[in-house]
Structure formats: structure tokens, C-alpha cells
């Protein structure tokens, strides 16, 4: 009995630092975001005015917010689908096929992930440059260099896809390494027997590899949602500043603009609440939809 009590005290003491840190740095700030979204406040003075749900009411009529919402959803969908497909393919090739210089490719694919987003933005600024950029120069070979240049960062219909490309390039390596790690644990014997029974590589991928790493794929889906929302802010900040004319404004960049540039801190926090609920909700939906009985091997 006495020993049991000492044990729980010991466990309590062990867990306390993490719990305290979690409360101070996670729970209280989150609670504050929710609280501040009910106030009209510029961010500095002591004149906070309680306005109830008014910030949310304004939000529902703010076309600029909906535009940033659309852009964010587009980014999440495009980046997730393309990145997941490509990194699964690359991971399968690199872990199942015998290719010369496998490790070299592994490193090459992973490098974008170590680079800071600001560096990546600078690289893509150079790639997208309308006159001497890599992309336009290559395209120029096929369509003739005397045509008007394609404005990758200037055309409002194109610019969001320019962001998508940069984000995919940045993310592929990370997810590829994650998928490779779980592919490595799939027993070789399964592939051997599949080979004997005459299954081709593509069939092996869909019937063996994919089902057996499904838990891992599900986890990364949540990562995709969260990192698309977070990284899109960094890319927008460094690459386009939300322009031209708000065409690349995303959730967080719009929230930042309202909270800091437009002196509407409370309104910014209301956007923060929507982003919080949206990413939580989306992750839950994704998690629910992709639920499968885990396969044992």
C-alpha cells in the first residue's frame, strides 16, 4: 500500500514538468486565442471592448477571408494529393528496386527539407523570374523566346499553382523518407511468395505495400493538413507577400495582416479560431474516412 503511494508520487513528479510546460505554453495561449476573438482590441492599449461574436459575424461577410479560405483549401488538396502520390512512388522505387546510387537519391530528395523556406523562396523566385528564369527559359525553347513571358508570380490565375509547386518540391523528401521507413519493415517473404504466384510490381505495390503501411499513410495525412496551413504562410510571406492583389492570401497570412497591419487583433484571433477548428475538424474527418482494420504481419 505504502509502496503504491510512493510510486504514484514518483510518477506525478516525473510527469509534472511536461504537464506544467504543456499548460503554460499550449493550453493557456489556446484559451487566450478563443477569449481574444470575442474582443475588439488593437493589440497594445488597455481598451479591450467585449463584442461577443461580432468578429465572427464580420468574418462571414468578408470576401477577402473567403478568398484566403479557398486558397488554403486548394493548397491543402493539391499539395497533399501530388506530394503523397509522388513520395509513395519514389519510396517504393527506392526501397523495392535495385538502383545504382540509391543513397545518393535519398539525400538529394531530402535536401529541400533541410533548407529554410526563405532559401527555397529565393530559389523559386529565381526559377520563376519572367525574363531570365529557369522555367521560362526552358519553356522558351519550345514556344519560341519572342513570345510574351509567362508571369509565374504575376498572373493571378497561375500564381497559386506556382506556390503549390514550391511546396511540393519542399515536402516530397520528408514524406518519402517516412514511407521508406515503414516499407522497410514489410517482410521480404510476402514479396517472394507474390513473385512466385506471378504478381507484377504494380500489383505488389497495391496489394502488399500500400495496405501494410496504411497506418503510416494515415498519420502523414494529418501532417499534410497541418504543415500545408503552416508552411503556406511562410511561402506566401517570403515569395509573394500575398500578392498580386491578394491572389495568394492564405489563412495565416490574412490573419497576420488583420491582427498586426490592420490593428484588429481581436479579429485576427477570430480568424485564428476558425483556422484552429478547421484544421482540427479536417484532421478528424480525414482520420475517420481513412480508418481501416490494421493489418498484422
Amino acid at each position: 500500500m505504502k509502496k503504491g503511494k510512493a510510486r504514484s508520487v514518483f510518477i506525478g513528479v516525473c510527469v509534472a514538468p511536461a504537464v506544467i510546460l504543456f499548460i503554460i505554453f499550449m493550453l493557456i495561449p489556446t484559451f487566450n486565442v478563443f477569449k481574444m476573438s470575442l474582443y475588439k482590441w488593437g493589440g497594445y492599449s488597455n481598451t479591450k471592448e467585449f463584442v461577443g461574436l461580432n468578429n465572427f459575424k464580420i468574418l462571414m461577410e468578408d470576401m477577402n477571408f473567403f478568398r484566403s479560405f479557398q486558397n488554403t483549401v486548394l493548397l491543402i488538396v493539391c499539395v497533399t494529393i501530388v506530394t503523397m502520390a509522388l513520395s509513395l512512388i519514389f519510396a517504393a522505387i527506392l526501397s523495392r528496386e535495385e538502383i545504382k546510387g540509391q543513397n545518393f537519391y535519398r539525400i538529394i530528395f531530402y535536401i529541400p527539407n533541410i533548407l529554410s523556406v526563405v532559401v527555397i523562396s529565393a530559389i523559386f523566385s529565381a526559377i520563376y523570374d519572367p525574363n531570365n528564369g529557369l522555367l521560362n527559359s526552358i519553356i522558351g525553347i519550345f514556344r519560341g523566346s519572342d513570345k510574351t513571358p509567362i508571369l509565374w508570380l504575376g498572373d493571378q490565375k497561375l500564381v497559386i499553382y506556382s506556390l503549390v509547386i514550391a511546396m511540393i518540391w519542399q515536402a516530397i523528401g520528408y514524406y518519402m523518407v517516412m514511407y521508406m521507413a515503414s516499407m522497410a519493415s514489410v517482410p521480404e517473404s510476402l514479396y517472394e511468395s507474390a513473385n512466385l504466384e506471378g504478381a507484377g510490381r504494380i500489383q505488389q505495390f497495391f496489394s502488399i505495400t500500400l495496405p501494410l503501411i496504411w497506418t503510416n499513410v494515415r498519420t502523414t495525412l494529418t501532417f499534410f493538413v497541418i504543415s500545408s496551413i503552416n508552411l503556406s504562410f511562410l511561402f506566401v510571406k517570403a515569395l509573394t507577400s500575398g500578392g498580386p492583389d491578394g491572389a495568394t492570401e492564405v489563412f495565416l497570412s490574412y490573419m497576420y495582416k488583420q491582427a498586426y497591419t490592420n490593428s484588429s487583433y481581436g479579429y485576427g484571433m477570430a480568424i485564428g479560431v476558425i483556422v484552429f477548428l478547421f484544421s482540427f475538424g479536417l484532421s478528424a474527418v480525414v482520420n475517420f474516412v481513412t480508418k481501416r482494420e490494421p493489418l498484422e504481419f
Partner: protein
Amino acid sequence: MKVKKVISTLLVTTMTAAMLAGCGGSGGGAEAPAPAADNAADETQAEAPAPADAEEAPEVEEQVLKVAAFEGGYGADMWSEVVAAFEASHPGVTVELTIDKKLEDVISPSMKAGDYPDVVHLATGREAALTETLTKENALLPLTDVLEMTVPGEDVKVKDKIIPGFLDTLATNPYGDGVTYYAPMFYSPCGLFYNAGLLKEKGWDVPTTWTEMWELGDTAAAEGIALFTYPTTGYFDAFTYAALASAGGSEFFDSCMTYEDGIWESADATKVFELVGTLAGYTEATTVANANNDNFTKNQQLILDNKAIFCPNGTWLPGEMAEAPRADGFEWGFMALPAVNDGGAGCSFCWFEQMWIPAAAQNQDMAKEFVAYMYSDEAAQIFAKATAIQPITGVSDYLEGDNKMFYSIYDNGATAVMGGFAATAPVEGVNMLDTLCGTVNSIVSGDKTVAEWQAAVEEASDKLRAAME
């Protein structure tokens, strides 16, 4: 078994203690270097000498003045020099100078905690909009009595030393009620920069009216040179302000800046919108793609490369592009905006930075003294060495070279336009400058029509009018 348990308990306690110590910050008195934990006697000895430093007996009243200044294109050295000169002429005053290119990020965390600088030099119109936020929240000290003070070391009143006109603008009296809250600092005319060398080489005349401007645009287009480019749409504030004042006069300009009902749909405003609409057609094709904070210098480079002729900017442009490669025979030219009405006056917006005192400042009297000192000949000369020009009478004597040309822009009959939008309570989701300037990108790329733009500006103006006090 028991020993193991004791050891792990010890470890956990150490971890917790270390964590708490990490969170502790500077609250804990003397900041002696951490003593070796195994000897308690060392600890007491190490702390003992600390109080000895505090024994200086002050003869004059010791005062600390906290000055926060934005480090702009003029550099940081001039501030250290001015502060040293101020300390020399005010015995007993120690100035704690904070200077940074991202001043907002440096000072706002402590401001949120209630620790304000006494004097802040930070202009309006910055992205973080700290100055605007404090203005909107009525957190600034009126400078009325500073204007009545005599300039330290001289016998002129501050308000008599400042060039007439500078204190009657919305950029110094943000609420439009005649009370000055921002002290004007470092003025700089904005206008159109062009490549004078190219015009000379081709034998083209510098256009003096917009009709001549469009003619030049057509001639140049035939040779593959665009008439116009802009670094980012942010520069259209100065451009539209000048155009508005030229189209409708200074009263009309003030009505626009104070969101008068229907003013943006008036005939004079329409002229300005249409002017920008026409100009959009003459804009260099790749401008929009580079009109962001990362690439705006590529647009400025177009001027140096003879690919575009005009670009709206301020006097810092030649300095900013000093290292850039340029076409043979390149030479900067600078002019005011041509008159919008036939036979009317051209206009140039005059941009200046601002210095202000937060209402929550601790040492307000010395802060006022410091602001007044900024207009002394001594301070102005130090600033002028770094090409920062104070708006005081007789300042032109300090100018030389290119600067003389920039500051003589008003000598050719152009009117100076000053000010900016009146301060309002924050309106969620409405940003006038974004609507007025940011949309230019869409006009150039053809995504929006001039009429849509004009309607959006009027709508934003309506919403902001309701929030004016």
C-alpha cells in the same frame, strides 16, 4: 534498489529545478555568474561584491531616457552621434538607444508588457503599422507644448523653425483636429524617377503633361521600351496622393483623406483612376510578377537597363541602386507628377518620417526636450551628413550634389502634397491602402476594371468614415 530510487528522485528534482530556473528570467536580483553547485561557501562570496557598483553619488539628477529609433536607409550611425551630442548638452541624462531595422519586433513585446520607450522614431505606412495602431488606440501624447518650446541651445521656438506647411497635415495631426501628435522628421520628395541619359541619347523631351507622356509612351513602345514600371504597388500611395491633389486641389485631397461621402466617385477622383488605368496599359509587362518584397529591385533595375523609362519612388532610390549595373550613359532624372488638369500645377508628394511620444512613457519631460532638440542646427547637421534632411528652415544650405536636385523639385512650380489617410478606429477586414494601391496590380494584369476598383475604394471609404471619431 533503494539507491536507484533515490538517484532517480534526485535526477527528477534537478530537472524540475533546472526548468524553473530557466523560466525565471531576470527577476532574481544580482546576475552573478552561476557558482559551482558543490560549494555553498563560494556562492556567498561570489555575490558579495555586487552592491559595490551602485555607490556613485549623483551630483546632477540622473535621468534615463529610452529612445527607440527605426534604422532606415540613412543608417544607424547618425543616431548614435545625435544621442551623444544630446547627452553632452544635457548633463545627467543617459540615453538608452534602441535602434533596429525591424523596430516593431524589438520594442512591441515589452510595450505589450507595459514597458514603453520614452521617444519613438517610427514612421506611419510600415507593414507592421505600430504607429497607426497606437494612433487608433489614442495612445500618443499630444506634442502641442513641444511646438511652443524653444529649441535647446537656440532662441527660436520649435514651431517657428519647422518649415511652414509641415504641421498642418494629417501626417502630423492624425485625427484632423489641429492637434499635433507626430513630429515631422527627415522629409523626402517622392516623384517620378527616370533615365535622363536615355532620353538625351534618343533625343526625346522630358514630358511636361500627361498627353506628352502618352506620346512618349507610344514612341518608346515602338523601340521596345516601356514607359512605366513600379517597384511594388506600395508606391502608389505617394503617386495617387499627388495625382489627387493635382486634380482637385488641396481641399479636395483632404476630403479624400478624411473619407468624405462620395468623394472617390467625384469627377476629379475619376480622372485619377482613369489616369492610372491608362498608365497601366503602358506598364512594362513583367512588372506585376516582380512587384513583391522579394523582387522589387528587378523592377527598379528595368530603369537602369533602359527597359522602362519612369518609375515612382523616393529620393532613397539612387542610394538603393548605387551598386547595380547600368546602361552606358545612365543618369538619374527626377520630376514631379505632370498636372492632371490642362494648365494646372504638377504635384509631388512629400514623404516624411515621424517621431512620437507614447502616452504611457515614463520620462515625458525629457522626451519632449529630446524631440525639440531634433530641430536644433546641431542635430540637423549630423542628420544631413547621412543625407537625412530635417524639415527646418534654411536646411537647403546643407545640401549638395544629387540631393540638391531632388530637393529642388518644388522650384519648378510643382506643389508639395503632404499627409495621408486620417486615423480611424480599426475596422475589421478593411484596409484602405490595400484597396487603393494593391489593386493596381489587378488593373495592370487586367483582372479588374477601373470602375470595379473605384467602387471598391468608395466602399472601403464608406466603412472607414463610420469609424472616424
